[in-house]
């Protein structure tokens, strides 16, 4: 059976080999296998099933979710132990973040659960924190789950309305962000063939992604080249049925997105976040599921986020739920597939995909799981028969959720608008008017000593000075409005991490992977200090920031992103490193120069847990 499947597979993949470059489905499978082998090795599991029942079940609700979603789409496993663990985790924890609730719902769905949690959370989650909750929510709706207040059509409308003029999407700011754009495309993919407005929006998003691709095939986010952005784009393209190794828009200097992503592959099979770095959980899991998404696209299976194990309840007839149309994918409809290569790609879904998918699942180099091929066949047949899959849609990894939590601060709806300081003339007039009224009153009461009027005048002047030196802005005006620097003298990068507290707390504001701000580039002007860059980052990316003594250059940063000093013992707090060295100066005294690398790190032991090198 296995042999037959491999043969079927290689036959269907002949066109790729003929193209002369790129990775075959087998090689892609090897790459996925490499990641799984690495994780098995690290977690000390003998097989994937061991891994699911062991480490992944133990970490349910903490960090297993993306692996579970990826594995459930990779092959068929028994995930009942994980399902039980996650159900227990959810019932014993208050999950405040909408995106986290949706992530748990997706993981439950992937584990084959029919728990009502999946549909229960939809109404309270979609639209809650901004774009990410809509993206995740739409994935669930695309899987056939329903809720009262939203339909797939309404969420799609909302997502389309959030598109920026440049064709992209982002959490905030004015320009599309690679990751968020790719994730939005993943969510919109199932509706590409159905709605012409989705089609044109997706095409504009694709042009942006094509334009931003770097010459090595990869992408950068927040100014830093990284594999996660490439993984998201690869997943999005696979969801849309575009073969990234065939479409000329996504091949730069002969390099594909997969080439770009593999630049970050470490010898042990895992992935790093930045070139030359060590193992990174987020990079590894995102690489894993993007490759799975790609492989599923080659095999004609459902998109990554149209889950094989989904068990939606029968939708109510009165909800007006727009159910995705039946499978209609044809080569001609595959978006972005150039006409010349459309008939040679392996991407279109054909009638014999069932056997191909079964074959590819079993032929993986981790076939130790003894998976019956028939199980996959039947699972897929059921999937293809009931719901629409123009292409796959994939949900982004943990780094996205950490950025989302940073954006919580901007959640309140904008009520006031207008330019900064527009209120000042009014307030000054009120103060002056009150002073005049008071003087008149004193005059009328007969207290006509000139000193009385001098006192009122001085008080009014003090009030006006306070109004002039303070600057009140609404959060909508303040956050997301990056400064434009006219006289930039260089670029620095900054990263904010709190790895030292991971596992010590379940506070929702602490990101799962410890990244509060990924490595991000900032332009500096002459004389800019570390503190100036931190303030700018807080403003641009909506990070909460607390300092003491900001009126002088003696600034002490006591809290970032709600994580405060002294929360983890009396030796805990924020420290900063520049180029890996701990300066012995305050952060508002450290003047930066071009190319400096700033890290803000949370320490629990006065820096002893950070490998500090002193100035």
């Amino acid at each position, binding site marked *: 059976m296995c042999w037959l499947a491999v043969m079927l597979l290689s036959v269907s993949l002949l066109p790729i080999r003929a193209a002369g470059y790129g990775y075959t489905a087998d090689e892609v499978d090897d790459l996925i296998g490499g990641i799984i082998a690495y994780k098995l090795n690290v977690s000390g599991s003998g097989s994937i099933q061991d891994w699911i029942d062991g480490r992944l079940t133990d970490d349910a609700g903490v960090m297993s979710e993306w692996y579970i979603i990826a594995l459930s789409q990779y092959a068929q496993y028994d995930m009942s132990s994980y399902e039980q663990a996650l159900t227990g985790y959810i019932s014993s924890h208050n999950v405040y973040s909408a995106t986290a609730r949706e992530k748990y719902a997706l993981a439950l769905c992937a584990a084959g659960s029919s728990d009502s949690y999946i549909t229960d959370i939809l109404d309270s989650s979609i639209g809650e924190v901004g774009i990410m909750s809509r993206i995740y929510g739409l994935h669930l709706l695309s899987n056939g789950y329903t809720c009262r207040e939203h339909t797939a059509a309404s969420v799609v409308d909302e997502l389309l309305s959030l598109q920026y003029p440049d064709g992209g999407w982002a959490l905030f700011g004015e320009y599309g962000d690679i990751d968020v754009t790719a994730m939005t495309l993943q969510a919109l993919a199932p509706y590409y063939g159905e709605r012409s407005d989705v089609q044109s929006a997706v095409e504009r998003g694709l042009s942006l992604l094509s334009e931003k691709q770097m010459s090595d095939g990869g992408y950068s986010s927040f100014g830093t080249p990284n594999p996660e952005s490439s993984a998201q784009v690869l997943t999005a393209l696979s969801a849309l049925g575009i073969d990234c190794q065939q479409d000329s828009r996504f091949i730069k200097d002969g390099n594909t997105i997969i080439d770009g992503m593999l630049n970050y592959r470490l010898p042990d099979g895992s992935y790093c976040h930045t070139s030359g770095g060590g193992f990174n959980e987020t990079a590894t899991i995102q690489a894993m599921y993007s490759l799975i998404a790609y492989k599923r696209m080659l095999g004609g299976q459902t998109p990554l986020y149209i889950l094989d194990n989904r068990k939606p309840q029968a939708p109510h007839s009165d909800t007006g739920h727009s159910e995705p149309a039946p499978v209609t994918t044809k080569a001609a409809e595959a978006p972005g597939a150039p006409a010349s290569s459309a008939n040679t790609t392996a991407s279109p879904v054909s009638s014999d995909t069932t056997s191909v998918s079964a074959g590819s699942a079993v032929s993986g180099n981790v076939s130790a799981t003894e998976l019956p091929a028939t199980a996959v066949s039947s699972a897929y047949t059921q999937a293809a028969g009931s719901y629409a899959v123009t292409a796959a849609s994939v949900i982004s990894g943990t780094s996205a959720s950490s950025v989302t939590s940073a954006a919580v601060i*901007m959640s309140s709806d904008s009520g006031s608008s207008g330019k900064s300081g527009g209120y000042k003339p009014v307030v000054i007039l009120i103060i002056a008017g009150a002073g005049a009224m008071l003087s008149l009153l004193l005059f009328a009461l007969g207290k006509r000593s000139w000193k009385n009027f001098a006192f009122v005048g001085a008080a009014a002047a003090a009030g006006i000075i306070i109004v002039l030196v303070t600057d009140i802005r609404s959060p909508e005006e303040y956050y997301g409005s990056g400064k434009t620097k006219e006289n930039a003298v260089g670029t620095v990068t900054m990263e904010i991490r709190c790895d030292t507290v991971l596992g010590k707390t379940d506070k929702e504001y602490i990101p799962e992977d410890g990244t509060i701000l990924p490595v991000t580039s900032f332009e500096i002007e002459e004389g800019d200090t570390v503190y100036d860059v931190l303030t700018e980052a807080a403003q641009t990316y909506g990070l*909460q920031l607390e300092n003491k003594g900001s009126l002088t250059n003696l600034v002490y940063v006591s809290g970032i992103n709600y994580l405060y000093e002294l929360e983890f013992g009396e030796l805990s707090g924020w420290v900063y490193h520049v180029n890996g060295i701990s300066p012995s100066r305050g952060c508002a005294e450290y003047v930066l120069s071009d190319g400096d690398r700033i890290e803000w790190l949370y320490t629990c032991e006065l820096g002893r847990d950070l490998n500090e090198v002193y100035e």
Partner: protein
Amino acid sequence: MRSFSEFDPITVTLWFFSVIGIAMFSGHPLVMSISLAGAILFFIVRNGLRHGRSHLFFLILFIVLALANPIISHNGATVLFVLNNAPVTLEALLYGINSAAMIVGVLYWFRSFTQIMTSEKVLRIAGAISPKLSLILSMSLRAVPMFARRAKQVSDAQKAMGLYNDDNIIDDLRGRMRVFSIIATWALENGIITADSMTARGYGTGRRTQLRRFRFSSSDAAFTLVTLALLGVSAAAVASGALDFNFYPHIEADVNGAAGISGAAAYGALVLLPVIIETEVSIRWKYLQSRI
């Protein structure tokens, strides 16, 4: 039954410190509101609607304390507006209101405490513990009213000499500053002289005797037992975390547990105990008068 202020000083002190202790160690808004409302009610029940200036002072203090926190602390997820690069958040404002309620509530309690616990009663308790402590307490308890009287004298003398000009704000303020400066100088000198004088008279050398006799009666015992029982319930709720309240970064209340509800209810009953006694006593007094 006696009026609450006529109970044994030990009973009264235990009750006050229970009420104030719970108010200070629990940060829960429910407990804070009970404490503040109870303190104001108790003060009004005892004093009627006099002391308008005290109420005004406490109101201003409350507003200043409530507004100070959001300006100093920038924790919290719901940003109201941004003041010179620093976010002013709803959570910080609510936290400020909560701590202002605690501080003002405790100040009201101490206000009533000093009214009830005259220096004689304080000495009855402190004298039993240490003669030295009793000396220091009796001196410091006497200090504030003495300064007020002295300030009035100095101010009158200044006016009589024509130095105190109060027909305009600036001169009025300067005059008050001068009086304050005179009082401060006099207080330093007076403190040394008083201490020497009292040592010379043999204060603080032995056990102090009282003019009045205090008797720990059965109603004192009953009141103490009820106080301890209610204190136990609410202290257990505070210690077990049933009355925890998280303001940052999102407001998370946790009062739903039975322990939390019973703790808050016990605290409410504890706070109302003397009010009930005072009301009962005053009704009985009026009833008895009406029969004459």
